[in-house]
């Protein structure tokens, strides 16, 4: 540094002496970048006399003598040059704009590597903070939604702070986990739920095998690399971002009036010689306004607020970024609250010119409180019974027993029970980077992730027998990565090589205490020792992973690019002989636009063709999957003496499989990137074909075998599809700038093979055993992973039909045996969309910015079991509440869509049928924000920037789906039960205002 300074000084001196002949104006000022940081070494030239010039000093200051009517030219590599007329000014401060085309953006590819977008050979979607800075965000995954081609980000719940489901190029595994691998600043983490979106500098989604193979056995589902912000050298910068607003559910489900409900009850309960269940007087009262629409009690307008404060900066040797964030939200469903708090400190220190160290620290707490009302049964509860009687006491059960459904009054649970789920997460990593020579670097890093979950709940005596459950679960992940890198500096033969050794361990423990028979409800789960019966449970599991990786990148004449890698992984989850797996990959790219014939083409500014191939793996099974684990829990204890139960040890419900090994995914990808009209339009198209073999499959065994499941390596799944993204500058003139980022993903998922000789398997176990004796989905060869099963509904038998009872539902007799038996259950659809798309439109006019995010899916179906229950069907549901029930068949209303409302027609109705299947396609305006930048207006107060904005989320959803919304479904993260709507937490529409202050 000292040397550089001296050089500046000498040059300045020389230039100054060479220009003493003319009597001129002395102009001085400071040159800064977009962020206001001074830039040293910027060349300032007299435009009329190229021998007259200077460079800025370390603080960005310059002084130059030029003719008072002259022009100065300011230039610095990496920034756009400017010519400024002096016009007699003696003080000219200059702000330089960075000169980066999108192709020069640096993309992070994992294990310390950064590659210019133009040099990429694999398929990677990159989202940087600039892309989402105008959208107020709570969660990190929200930023990926609609912004990355090939990345399906689905909101599976409208609960504040709740998770999103991310699938990269479809689901590979059937029962194994299909979540991508999350890597935060080089450290693999269990989840990204608590991260603060404002801390994110960039996110890269690794999609094809050449990009993911470096993560070997955990790369098969794609990898999301998250890089958090670090401080920039210069003046300390303090930033405050805040927004607050309210949310509502997007829509309610239409129901009948209470009087119509009561008439429906009487129709269904009608039996010879029996008086009406709800008498005429009461129906008259209901008509006059008595009765309840339960949704009015379940939903509310819910406020939320978010504040982020950060400070960043740095000196020559040290930079820092620290931030704090609190987010508080009530849910649109009563009695559900969410709070999140997190802190981050990222610090890097250059100890000397060879050694750099740093630490990234993140701690957070999130709290979900409140027992949730059961929407599925609650909405379908008795409309005749108000929640409280005239003296204010609960009507715990229907006024007329056996009306509505078998559950208690739905408000009892949320208003009396307690639930508190706390998650504490610590992510801490340190690294040391040592330049052994100019070309060889050794990087050693280590990290800890610790997540503690504390889930406490209490069931109040008013709802039934009181009971408290407190569960503490702790997960600890340790990681150490050692990397040796070589990089030459020959531009014609650019060569880079990395060798990596990595080890990880993961340990999970839990302790659970269940207590019941409390003599008082006053202390709920906070004092378990007051319970008459106390049980405990605990468990521990562990897994270890050791890996070696070698990777090379080679670029020939900046035209031909090659990448190859090989990774070996050893996992403790498998037995010795199957433990190690090897995962190779290779890719190449040809920058056609660097060839002479295309070099200075007027339209095509860049063109690159890419191809890649590679193998990745998945070990997404639980530890101890190879062995039998005896069942030890109260489910196996028995009171031989009629008193205190004896402890039982039951044989495993899992059949051991010592041969279990890796699931492997082979992926082939070709694509091209083309830039047109000086990169005003950038189009990327990728085609991929993935084949997953030796799938880790948890197969249901028939009951007589004993164990109910076995985890096997069996079967094959194929995913083929396109990712297309198109970034365009639509308009850029005067004060206007319009940018569009559109992407489209189409994925076709197909099961090629299951266990030998088996054509279909029942795997989704969520509904099996409770509501439906036959599972609503199954996995079948030749079909997508989740296929809906059911009878084919063909309308309603009408009076005069040759067959069937008028008013009863008609089903297709698939095997033509003139009977409707379980043989007539067929495939009736699936929950996979044909394609999904996202569109981010950004408009700037002067200091105004409008940012809109549209998003949609096409061609997926939803099994609407919420509606089925509301039609009076399903386990322990006696009567209908849905508005569609008005259109039930009767002799005077020969409906062909809804069967009759009688008990006989209900009994003849099949719950699993295409009658409850609906098109789930939708288009939504996910987010729209209007921002006004007040820029310099507050500069007198030392404020550098002040932006205010208004935002709306889910302003509209265009869909034919009749439920709350087509986005959230109850199946959560599961891929075998995709698209089942039952007791889902509806997504919300929200409005917020906020500001962004920098000083």
């Amino acid at each position, binding site marked *: 540094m000292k040397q550089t300074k001296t050089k500046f000084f000498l040059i300045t001196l020389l230039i100054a002496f060479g220009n003493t002949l003319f009597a001129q104006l002395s102009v001085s000022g400071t040159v800064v970048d977009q962020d206001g940081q001074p830039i040293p070494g910027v060349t300032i030239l007299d435009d009329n006399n190229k021998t007259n010039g200077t460079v800025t000093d370390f603080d960005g200051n310059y002084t130059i003598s030029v003719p008072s009517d002259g022009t100065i030219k300011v230039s610095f590599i990496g920034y756009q040059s400017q010519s400024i007329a002096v016009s007699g000014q003696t003080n000219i401060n200059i702000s330089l704009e960075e000169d980066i085309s999108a192709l020069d953006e640096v993309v992070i590819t994992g294990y310390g590597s950064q590659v210019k977008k133009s040099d990429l050979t694999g398929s990677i979607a990159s989202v940087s903070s600039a892309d989402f800075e105008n959208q107020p965000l709570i969660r990190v995954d929200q930023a990926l939604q609609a912004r990355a081609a090939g990345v399906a980000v689905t909101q599976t719940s409208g609960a504040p702070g709740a998770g999103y489901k991310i699938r990269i190029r479809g689901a590979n595994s059937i029962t194994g986990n299909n979540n991508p691998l999350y890597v935060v600043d080089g450290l693999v983490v269990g989840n990204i739920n608590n991260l603060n979106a404002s801390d994110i500098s960039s996110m890269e989604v690794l999609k094809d095998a050449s990009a993911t193979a470096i993560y070997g056995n955990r790369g098969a589902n794609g990898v999301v690399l998250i890089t958090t912000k670090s401080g920039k050298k210069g003046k300390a910068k303090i930033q405050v971002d805040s927004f607050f607003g309210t949310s509502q559910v997007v829509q309610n489900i239409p129901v009948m009036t209470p009087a119509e409900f009561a008439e429906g009850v009487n129709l269904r309960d009608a039996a010879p010689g029996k008086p009406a269940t709800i008498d005429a007087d009461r129906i008259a009262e209901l008509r006059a306004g008595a009765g309840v629409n339960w949704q009015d009690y379940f939903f509310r307008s819910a406020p939320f607020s978010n504040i982020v404060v950060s400070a960043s900066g740095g000196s020559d040797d040290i930079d820092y970024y620290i931030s704090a964030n609190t987010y508080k939200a009530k849910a649109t469903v009563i009695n559900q609250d969410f709070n999140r708090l997190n802190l981050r400190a990222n610090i890097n220190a250059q100890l000397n010119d060879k050694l750099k160290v740093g630490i990234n620290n993140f701690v957070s707490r999130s709290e979900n409180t409140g027992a949730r009302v059961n929407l599925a049964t609650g909405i379908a509860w008795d409309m005749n019974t108000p929640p409280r009687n005239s003296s204010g006491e609960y009507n715990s059960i229907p006024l007329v027993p*056996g009306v509505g459904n078998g559950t208690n009054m739905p408000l009892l649970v949320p208003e009396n029970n307690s639930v508190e789920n706390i998650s504490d997460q610590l992510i801490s990593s340190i690294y040391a980077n040592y330049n052994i020579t100019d070309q060889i670097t050794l990087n050693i890093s280590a990290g800890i992730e610790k997540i503690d979950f504390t889930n406490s709940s209490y069931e109040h005596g008013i709802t039934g027998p009181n009971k408290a459950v407190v569960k503490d679960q702790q997960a600890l992940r340790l990681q150490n990565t050692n990397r040796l890198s070589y990089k030459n500096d020959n531009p014609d033969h650019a060569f880079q090589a990395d060798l990596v050794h990595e080890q990880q361990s993961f340990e999970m423990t839990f302790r659970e205490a269940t207590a019941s028979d409390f003599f008082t409800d006053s202390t709920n789960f906070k004092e378990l020792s007051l319970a008459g019966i106390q049980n405990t449970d605990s468990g521990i599991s562990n897994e270890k992973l050791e890996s070696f990786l070698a990777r090379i990148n080679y670029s020939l004449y900046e035209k031909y690019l090659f990448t190859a890698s090989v990774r070996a992984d050893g996992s403790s989850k498998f037995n010795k002989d199957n433990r190690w797996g090897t995962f190779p990959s290779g890719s190449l790219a040809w920058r056609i636009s660097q060839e002479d014939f295309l070099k200075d083409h007027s339209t095509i500014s860049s063109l690159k063709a890419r191809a890649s191939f590679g193998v990745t793996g998945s070990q997404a099974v639980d530890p101890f999957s190879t062995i039998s684990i005896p069942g030890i829990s109260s489910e196996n204890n028995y009171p031989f003496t009629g008193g205190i139960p004896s402890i039982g040890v039951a044989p495993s419900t899992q059949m051991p499989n010592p041969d279990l090994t890796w699931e492997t995914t082979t992926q082939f990808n070709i694509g091209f990137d083309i830039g047109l009209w000086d990169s005003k339009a950038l189009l990327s198209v990728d085609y991929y074909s993935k084949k997953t073999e030796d799938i880790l499959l948890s197969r249901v065994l028939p009951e007589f075998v004993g164990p109910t499941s076995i985890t096997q390596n069996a079967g094959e799944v194929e995913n083929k599809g396109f990712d297309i993204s198109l970034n365009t500058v639509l308009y850029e003139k005067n004060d206007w700038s319009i940018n569009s980022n559109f992407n489209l993903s189409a994925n076709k998922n197909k099961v090629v093979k299951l266990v030998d000789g088996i054509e279909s398997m029942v795997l989704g176990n969520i509904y099996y055993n409770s509501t439906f*004796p036959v599972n609503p989905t199954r996995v079948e060869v030749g079909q997508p992973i989740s296929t809906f099963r059911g009878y084919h509904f063909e309308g309603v038998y009408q009076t005069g039909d040759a067959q069937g009872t008028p008013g009863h539902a008609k089903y297709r007799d698939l095997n033509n045996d003139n009977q409707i038996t379980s043989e007539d259950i067929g495939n009736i659809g699936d929950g996979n969309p044909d394609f999904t798309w996202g569109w981010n439109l950004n408009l700037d006019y002067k200091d105004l910015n409008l940012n809109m995010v549209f998003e949609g899916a096409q061609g997926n179906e939803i099994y609407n079991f919420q509606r089925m229950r509301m039609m009076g069907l399903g386990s322990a549901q006696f009567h209908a509440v849905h508005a569609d029930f008005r259109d039930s068949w009767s002799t005077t209303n020969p409906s062909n869509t809804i069967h009759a409302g009688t008990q006989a027609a209900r009994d003849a109705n099949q719950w699993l049928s295409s009658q409850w299947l609906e098109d789930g396609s939708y288009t939504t305006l996910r987010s729209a924000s209007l921002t006004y930048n007040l820029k310099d207006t507050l500069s007198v107060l030392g404020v550098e920037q002040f932006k205010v904005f208004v935002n709306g989320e889910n302003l509209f959803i265009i869909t034919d789906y009749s439920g709350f919304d087509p986005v959230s479904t109850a199946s959560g993260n599961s891929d075998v039960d995709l698209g089942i709507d039952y007791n889902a937490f509806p997504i919300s529409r929200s409005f917020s205002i906020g500001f962004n202050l920098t000083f």
Partner: protein
Amino acid sequence: MKYTYKIFTIFASFLFVFSCSDLEEDRSGILSLDNLQSEGDLVAALTPIYKQLQVTYRGFLIRTNTFGSDDLTTWWGGNKAPLRVFDGFNYGNGENADINWLDYDWKGFWKLIYHANSLVNGLQTSTAPEASKAIIEAEARCLRAIAYLSLVKVYGNLPIILDGMTPTGDEQRATVLENYQHIEVDLLFAEANLPAPGSTANVGRASTSVAKTALADLYLTWAGWPVKDPSKNALAATKAKEVIDMGYHTLLPINELWSMENANSKESILSAQYSKEEGATGNQMPAATSFHMARGWSDMYPELQFFKDFPEGARKDATFVTDIPNRGFSGGKIVTKTPATISWEKSERFHPMYGKWTKSEDLTVGPRTIGFRPIEVYRYAEVLLIYAEAKAASGSMDASALEALNQVKRRAAGLDPNAANPSVDVTSATVNDIVTEKGWELAGEHKRWFDLIRTETLEEVTAKRDPKEQVPLVRQPTKDQYITPLPAEAIATSKLIQNPQGFKIR
């Protein structure tokens, strides 16, 4: 420069401290059934077998496939469609294999059989004392036999899955006869090795009278439909008589039989225990047999004709509830409304309720009535009636058999069962008379259906059904309705052939 190296070395060595070169799973927290060492280990492995008996007998669900008998009907509305399928005989050719609750006993008993098989396998390598091992094995095989017998009675022939086998799911169904044979082998082993009744404080555990009673039940079933081997009647009589001759079991006064205090009395031969110490799970029989207005679920109640034919007397009063309790739920408590009861004719379901389980009901736990009294699997009255029937059926009716029948009849009339009383005693009885008596004595106890199909009298009993019953009869039953369709999910995951095609008797 030296300084840099120093820092770096310290740094690097610090990082290498944690290393996981050993990639073995730490399995020290996992227990193994292959290593049963002590008496305690044996009991721990035995416990989940009994647990499955408890789970399967917990409520009305075990009876789902037997609602066709005349001692059971259900609510015409609500969610009782699966029960109506059986009450109205809407099955028999593979249809309705996919309904709720049908597979409840299937799942419960197969799990019991698995637990028993695993324990017997574990005994092969066990180092526990031989005497303990023999008793434990006898208990496991006794319960396995009872579970198998229950399943075969309902579903017909089943694959044979016993200890020492490693089933894959590809197994085929054996014949009913073959199933009877391995059940018999298990029970004979159990009979020889189980302790005498009353010899342990563990009231829930099986004694030799359980094995003998189950054998008597097996032989009586074997003699009737579908195998129809009349030579088994004599064996049934012998085993029942052995239980009687033990002199341990007695009949309780009928009005005290169903009280909480008389749980595990000397009338009980085997019962499933439901302890309050386990929490609020209990058994659902009071709720299943109570109407909604009495804080139950209206799952099962007697058919009108059955109730009408039931002879008046102490037993009828102990068996049914005719003044239906009128209750609500408020403030976390079950409360009594006014009027406190409503006569059955005007009640919610226009039927009487069973009173056998509500007699011991607990109204203080939660929103529904619940039971903690053990559920009887076999009780002494059944042994007496099996003996009488087997003697009659084998043409060797004698004084001892009549005495057995008369003991039940005297007790039913509220009299001392052991004192002859001409006002109730009979001097002759046909098989039919005894089966009818058994229907009354064991009404609602998951016995009547099996007696009706075994003796092939289901058709004639159904013909007498009161037309005022609200659950419609889809058809008059034939032999096709004697067995239940195998659960659709079991068919889908295995190579089993559905009834009636897969039903093979010999």
